[in-house]
């Protein structure tokens, strides 16, 4: 390892004292200057810091959607745009700019972005980059189950909006955020590596230590990150955005609570003969199947089921799978719910004056799937919540802090909420001269996001449990819930607002 670094550095004409593993500047400089983007800002640079290896202000571990959203948000806010940031992610595409061509087939990994997240993106000027690629707004949604006892239709016009959400491929979100960042003067360096170990200085001050002016004391208040390719870097704040199996969370010793669902999800892209403009979700005995539009006659399927069936369905022939999907969405497992006509809402007819538009809509059958357009991927599902999001020098955002069931498309939206909340709090801290690694500041972020995240997680977990039991009285209760949501306008508006991220609590706001 050492000789590798030495060779690289000698090539660049540096001479470093090597026993101290050099701060990775040579390798990083070459990687980040190799992309075609505006050159001067990315690399730490031959000109300034290479010899001494200036520490970073923030090191973001994980360059996925949430990590990028955080970095982009820092880049675009006036108080934080001067920060020096390192992004550690081993995805080679990240360093080369993540270019996406229009003709690329749609990726199976997509996310539903809620209106709240869209407005956060618009605040930092990143949404216009997303709109340059494939994306699909949807303004209607239908939810029903296999018992055929009830259904709910949601329409964006119920809450006087134009759309309920937008479905975007994950790689599009990632590359849009990267492009948005590259259009600024933000100093960021991308390290194409994996975090292997981390040293956080545990004590604030040890009284007996004499104040020396050696570099060691100056590094005393920093976190040291060791990467798998042998480089090391120092940073004031380490942000763990590295997903549900977060290495940062593990190294920082945060405990988690949660459980695995005995369900796996199959994800794939399918094609129709016409454009799909609505989102559909049907709860089946073994789990929900969701059909989401992603643009250009394509849709995305997220089908949750028990692990055995998941393996079977992944391996079956394409045509059989397509038939399975249509069966599951249409007449399989149970009858269609009866559509109600205007005025036959029964006891709910006294809401007639205040009905929502979607209360009068009939039950519709989803668009027929014609062919499979991508490979089928299977993921295990679990609920996880880190007991703490922050401690000195470390903070977690996104899936590293919490994972949820995909049944309401909220997972990454919680992550984006975390990223933007953290960058706002860091900005407020810098405005009053706070040290960004200070625990009190990070705990403010934790207090703000924990409530929102835990509430959402509890609700989603509740849904998951309620819909996984086939028991007569419970089925009737669920049907009543469907009817209630369909015909009681305040409840429906509440649900739409909460799922859109516009309000903090589902019922009481």
């Amino acid at each position, binding site marked *: 390892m050492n000789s590798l670094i030495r060779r690289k550095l000698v090539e660049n004409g540096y001479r470093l004292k090597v026993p101290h593993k050099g701060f990775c500047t040579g390798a990083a400089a070459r990687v980040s200057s190799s992309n075609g983007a505006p050159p001067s800002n990315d690399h730490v640079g031959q000109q300034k810091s290479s010899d001494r290896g200036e520490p970073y202000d923030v090191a973001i571990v994980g360059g996925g959607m949430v990590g990028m959203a955080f970095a982009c948000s820092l880049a675009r806010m006036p108080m934080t745009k001067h920060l020096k940031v390192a992004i550690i992610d081993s995805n080679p595409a990240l360093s080369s700019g993540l270019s996406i061509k229009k003709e690329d087939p749609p990726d199976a990994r997509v996310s539903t972005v809620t209106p709240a997240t869209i407005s956060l993106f618009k605040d930092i000027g990143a949404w216009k980059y997303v709109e340059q690629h494939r994306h699909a707004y949807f303004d209607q949604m239908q939810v029903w189950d296999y018992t055929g006892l009830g259904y709910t239709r949601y329409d964006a016009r119920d809450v006087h909006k134009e759309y309920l959400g937008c479905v975007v491929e994950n790689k599009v979100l990632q590359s849009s955020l990267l492009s948005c960042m590259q259009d600024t003067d933000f100093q960021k360096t991308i390290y194409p590596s994996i975090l292997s170990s981390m040293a956080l200085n545990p004590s*604030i001050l040890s009284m007996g230590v004499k*104040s020396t002016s050696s570099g060691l*004391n*100056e590094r005393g208040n920093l976190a040291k990150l060791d990467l798998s390719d042998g480089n090391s870097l120092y940073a004031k704040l380490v942000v763990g955005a590295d997903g549900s199996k977060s290495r940062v969370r593990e190294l920082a010793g945060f405990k988690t609570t949660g459980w695995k669902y005995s369900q796996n999800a199959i994800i794939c892209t399918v094609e129709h003969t016409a454009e799909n403009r609505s989102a559909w979700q049907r709860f089946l005995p073994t789990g929900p199947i969701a059909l989401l539009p992603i643009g250009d006659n394509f849709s995305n399927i997220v089908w949750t089921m028990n692990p055995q069936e998941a393996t079977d369905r992944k391996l079956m022939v394409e045509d059989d799978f397509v038939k399975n999907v249509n069966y599951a969405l249409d007449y399989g497992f149970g009858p269609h719910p009866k559509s109600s006509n205007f005025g036959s809402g029964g006891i709910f007819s006294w809401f007639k004056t205040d009905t929502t538009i979607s209360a009068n809509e009939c039950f519709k059958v989803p668009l027929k799937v014609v062919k499979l357009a991508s490979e089928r991927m299977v993921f295990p599902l679990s609920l996880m919540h880190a007991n703490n999001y922050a401690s000195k020098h470390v903070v977690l955002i996104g899936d590293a802090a919490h994972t949820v069931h995909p049944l309401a498309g909220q997972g990454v939206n919680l992550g984006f909420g975390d990223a933007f909340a953290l960058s706002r709090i860091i900005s407020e801290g*810098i*405005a009053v001269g706070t040290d960004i690694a*200070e625990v009190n500041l990070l705990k403010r972020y934790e207090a703000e996001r924990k409530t929102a995240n835990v509430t959402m997680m509890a609700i989603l977990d509740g849904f998951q449990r309620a819909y996984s039991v086939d028991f007569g009285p419970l089925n009737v209760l669920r049907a009543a819930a469907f009817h209630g949501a369909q015909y009681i306008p305040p409840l429906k508006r509440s649900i739409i607002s909460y799922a859109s991220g516009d309000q903090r609590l589902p019922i009481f706001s």
Partner: protein
Amino acid sequence: MAMTWKLLKQLRPLPTATASSILHRPRFLNLHNATRLFSDAPPPLPPPSVEPPSIPPPQNPHSPSPSSLNQTELAKFAAIAGTWWDSEGPFKPLHALNPTRLAFIRSTLCRHFRRDPLSARPFEGLKFIDVGCGGGILSEPLARMGASVTGVDAVEKNIKIARLHADLDPVTSSIEYHCTTAEKLVEEQRSFDAVFALEVIEHVANPAEFCKSLSALTVPDGATLISTINRSMRAYATAIIAAEYILHWLPKGTHQWSSFLTPEELILILERASISVQEMAGFAYNPLTGRWSLSDDISVNFIAYATKTETSTS
């Protein structure tokens, strides 16, 4: 601003000789003998009180100006000096209050020095002094906002701790800490663009002289920021009974109610020192969120932003 004008209008114009009789209100607690006199006569020196051995004698023996130090007060702070940077320790309320008072400081000083409020380092090139800096809780954020900060405190232990902590971060390691007093700096003829004396004046033996020293340290058209606790019944209930005896936020005896100043008194002694108060704000604590916020209510904690006016007799 309007509030300050209201306060100033309430003050009747007084000849200086009778000022002390009007402002010398009866006090409920007279636990220490140093009385508050606002006349220009030299005040009596504070009586010798029990001094714990850890405090080095700070006075310069041949200094002509009376020192504003109060030995009992210094002893209190020296005893808990090690816990300055423990955000869960005895200084927890101060750590919680710090961002709020910095918000006021940032807003008023960006306007005063005409700096960009959206800049991350608006105080570049300005010289600030933090009088009674303690462990450096205020000095460090000011340095991060770009100012060249000097921190002074009369307790040597505090200065040691402040230096150690500031050296951890290259940005704050440029802060100069000295164990000295405001009066000595005046003798050295130092001057600064902004002078900060936050939560200090209630621990000082002679506030009037202290304000004169602060004024001498400020350049003409410079800014002075002073924060303290109001001498009101509400403050007695909140800052002393609740904070010290019920919630145990502060060690008992940290504050003496009789040493508190009312805003009117503070404005008056500052006026006498050629400093005119421009804005005042209060701090309100929300027990549900545990956070402080700025408010118009100056009945308990308050902070004053003042500017040095040109003295007619220099």
